[in-house]
């Protein structure tokens, strides 16, 4: 085959690979809605969202934080969120002294309040520091959510995550793309539940909702 025709095959194959994974997101609509409902309650209690991931997953953490902090839709309330992976000094400092596995757990330990939410991102479900971060969050009473990919790895099997959304693809680029849609939907639905009429979130933060689904 000529270079052009192999490129044509490559481009069609690349788009087809995304199609399968993107359609599957609809099957998770129920668990996404329940997670957003839980998160809206936490935000009403004054909770904040703590997000973390490695490599490209770190860019998703930053994207999620800015999504909540500075909504693209005018008139939507800014909700508190921080991306742990943005702090290169602390991540590399903890990594150097205590090992990379301890980075997010260390930051969660210092930053988390019981009403908070932790969201860990790992495109293959095999990031040890993401798992450790979620375990620390769970111990401290946070709501925990994981965005994973592939077969979900140890992350999907761990009791540390209340909710796990696993994109069934072994291509990390495709996993990322479905994650982006998932967290855009997550942000939007959190606001839908947050805006439902009801008493203000002025009471003592409680435990998790028990609406676990994975």
């Amino acid at each position, binding site marked *: 085959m000529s270079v052009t025709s192999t*490129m*044509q095959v*490559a*481009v*069609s194959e*690349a*788009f087809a*690979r995304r*199609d399968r994974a*993107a*359609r599957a*997101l*609809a099957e*998770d609509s129920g*668990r*996404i*809605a*329940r997670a957003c*409902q839980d998160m*809206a*309650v936490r935000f*009403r209690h004054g909770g904040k969202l703590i997000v973390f991931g490695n*490599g*490209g997953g770190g*860019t*998703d953490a*930053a*994207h999620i934080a*800015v*999504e909540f902090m500075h909504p*693209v839709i005018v008139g939507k309330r800014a909700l508190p969120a921080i991306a742990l992976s943005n702090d290169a000094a602390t991540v590399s400092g903890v990594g150097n002294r205590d090992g990379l596995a301890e980075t997010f757990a260390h930051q969660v330990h210092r930053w988390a309040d019981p009403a908070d939410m932790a969201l860990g991102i790992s495109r293959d479900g095999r990031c040890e520091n993401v798992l450790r971060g979620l375990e620390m969050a769970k111990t401290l009473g946070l709501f925990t959510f994981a965005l994973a990919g592939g077969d979900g790895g140890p992350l999907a099997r761990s*009791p540390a995550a209340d909710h796990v959304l696993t994109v069934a693809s072994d*291509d*990390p*680029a*495709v996993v*990322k*793309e479905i994650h*982006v*849609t998932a967290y*855009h*939907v997550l942000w*939007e*639905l959190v606001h*839908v*539940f947050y805006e*439902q*009429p*009801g*008493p203000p979130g002025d*009471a*003592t933060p*409680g*435990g*998790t*909702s*028990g*609406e*676990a689904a*994975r």
Partner: protein
Amino acid sequence: MGRLEGPPAEGVRELYPFLYEGRADLEAVLAEACRSTEEKAAEIVRLRWQVAEASADALMECAGEMALRFASGGRLFAFGNGGSSTDAQEVATAFLHPPCGLSLPALSLTSDVAVVTALSNDVGFDVVFARQLAALGRHGDIAVGLSTSGGSANVVRAFEEATRRGMLTIGLAGDEGGRLAELDLLDYLFVIPSSSVHRIQEAQTTVYHVLWELTQHALGAVPAP
């Protein structure tokens, strides 16, 4: 579906019965939330195929040009604001530290907070990317700028500087392309035909991932997905 271990959140439920007691309107909200997710998943699938149809040839050609630049020692610089700054970072790390294939030199101009805040404070936010390209960029390099609106002034200024320096210029925009579409100086502009910032960003993610994959193909380093 597994249930959580540990105490149920009776406290939360008592405080927020409207969110948990199965009131008809809450059930309706949940159903609406599910329907909304399904709609959005279908929408982005449609949008990706639209992009594939409109841009497949340009993507192949653009990746070929990028491969030529990399093969001749060119480097890639990526830039954008807000969510697009995280995409710029993703582009840089995708080329520099890929899951497979060749590692290629790439830098996100949004990652150095000292430089970004110094330029913003001393000169103005419009020059944060252009000034970095003036210092770091050279003939044969690649500039990738992302803007959902196509109207970010600092992205436009960066492309003007990149063109002056003889860099390959690649823009990613949304809707109708905004100012980037009017510039008439970009080598390639991929416009995502949607009015939703979220869907535009999702399709742009696909565009730069496909560009990365095709560049690897063109360099003979076929990645195994």
